[in-house]
């Protein structure tokens, strides 16, 4: 037992655990609304934009975090908050934005000897102090937001036409969801990897919907599943020296498969 907990004597593991749990929780809560609104691929698109922004910032010797956050926020607002006015944005625009950002990011990294593998699939060493504090802030913000506005988030997710017609201010709710999603993706990207962070948005929500039939329950279940899968995945990643993104997603996949078998 002592041996098990000894891994958390390392400061980087403490940071990875705290930051990761918060990112996992936020991604799961935000993911429920995104998945139900058929925006599941947004997380994937935003993570690629974040990768592009981080690479360019690094090449220009700027702070990757403080470049990526506003850039990804802007992309999220464009794709999520501003959309819908003329019907749903096509998935083609998301795919174009994401592949273009990936290409720019790889070019910006060229010849710098950067470990692209860790960017793509995550690194256990990646969370710095600054990011951990930002995670705590993000987690507090998302939790308060969901506690106060659960009904409004449900209303907008279930039926935008009705919410708009009856004078609910869904624009603000949608904007807040978009901005929170952007920050979650940027903060989770280094730990989980560009290619795998979107799984945190997707899997816990899908798993929770397998077993829950009330919106409130889906939120709680998604949060719990996501946090547990992250913790398990992080430990496995440490013991077997694997990319944390891959182990966490595998844990999520296992839970989803199990719940699918139970509830057929």
């Amino acid at each position, binding site marked *: 037992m002592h041996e098990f907990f000894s891994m958390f004597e390392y400061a980087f593991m403490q940071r990875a655990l705290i930051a990761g749990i918060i990112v996992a929780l936020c991604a799961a809560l935000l993911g429920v609304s995104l998945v*139900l*609104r*058929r925006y599941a691929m947004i997380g994937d698109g935003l993570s690629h934009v974040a990768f592009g922004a981080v690479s360019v910032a690094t090449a220009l010797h700027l702070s990757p975090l403080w470049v990526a956050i506003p850039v990804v926020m802007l992309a999220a607002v464009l794709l999520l908050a501003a959309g819908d006015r*003329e*019907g749903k944005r096509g998935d083609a625009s998301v795919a174009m934005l994401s592949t273009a950002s990936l290409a720019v990011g790889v070019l910006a990294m060229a010849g710098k000897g950067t470990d692209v593998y860790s960017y793509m699939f995550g690194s256990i060493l990646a969370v710095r102090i600054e990011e951990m504090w930002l995670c705590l802030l993000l987690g507090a913000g998302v939790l308060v937001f969901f506690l*106060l506005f659960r*009904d*409004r988030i*449900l*209303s907008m997710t*279930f*039926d935008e*036409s*009705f*919410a*708009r*017609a*009856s*004078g*609910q201010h869904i624009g603000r709710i949608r904007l807040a969801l978009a901005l929170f999603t952007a920050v979650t993706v940027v903060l989770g990207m280094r730990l989980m990897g560009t290619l795998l962070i979107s799984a945190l948005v997707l899997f816990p929500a899908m798993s929770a*919907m397998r077993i*829950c*039939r*009330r*919106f*409130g*329950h*889906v939120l709680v279940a998604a949060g719990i599943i996501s946090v547990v899968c992250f913790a398990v995945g992080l430990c496995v990643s440490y013991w077997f020296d694997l990319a944390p993104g891959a182990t966490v997603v595998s844990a999520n996949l296992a839970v989803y498969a199990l719940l699918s078998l139970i509830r057929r």
Partner: protein
Amino acid sequence: MALFTVQNLSLAYEGRHVIDNLSFTVAQGDYLCIVGENGSGKSTLLRGLLGMISPTAGRILRGDGLGRQDMGYLPQQTKQQRDFPASVEEVVRTGCLNRTGLLPSPDTRTKVEENLRRLGIADLRRRPYAHLSGGQQQRVLLARALCAAQKLLLLDEPTASLDPAAASEFYRLIDDLHREGLTVIMVTHDIPPAMEYATHILHLGTKSHWFGTADAYGKAGSGFTGGEHHA
């Protein structure tokens, strides 16, 4: 003063003109059915009345102190709603949000309860919305609309996905609500029930529109020639 006075209205949907030069009025206590072929702009007109889109020409005047908060809307059901993970109670509660502030107000609960009972679905309140029949789902959405509004109901093809028995039951339910004093504006494809229950008919055509009482519409042989007036 009427609830709605529509004058020479033109509306567009996704940049395309769908309604041109339309005039009609809706008074308190009316039951107006909007009929017409697909693409004639019935749903667009409802969205115009709700204030969700602005006229490209003409005017929609609201009278009798009618505000957004007095209108209950029952949109067409979307595919993703059918298997949405929410309980009946959760869905109906979202109808009360236009009145509450940051925290849920204490009368949200009584209002939800009252409308669940009014529509005979109080015993379904803990059931998952996705597990209900089409008719029950429409009752839930109607309860939500009633939470949002007391004066006026706007319904967009509420019986489109119902089987004939559930549809006629739904029409009787709306009729009851109308008799209780609600003003009803309904988009529908079914001419016979529209003629039976509605007080007024608005027929949207591609070239011209017809507006008048249901009786006059019947005499015109469901066509829209020789009615009270061409709208």
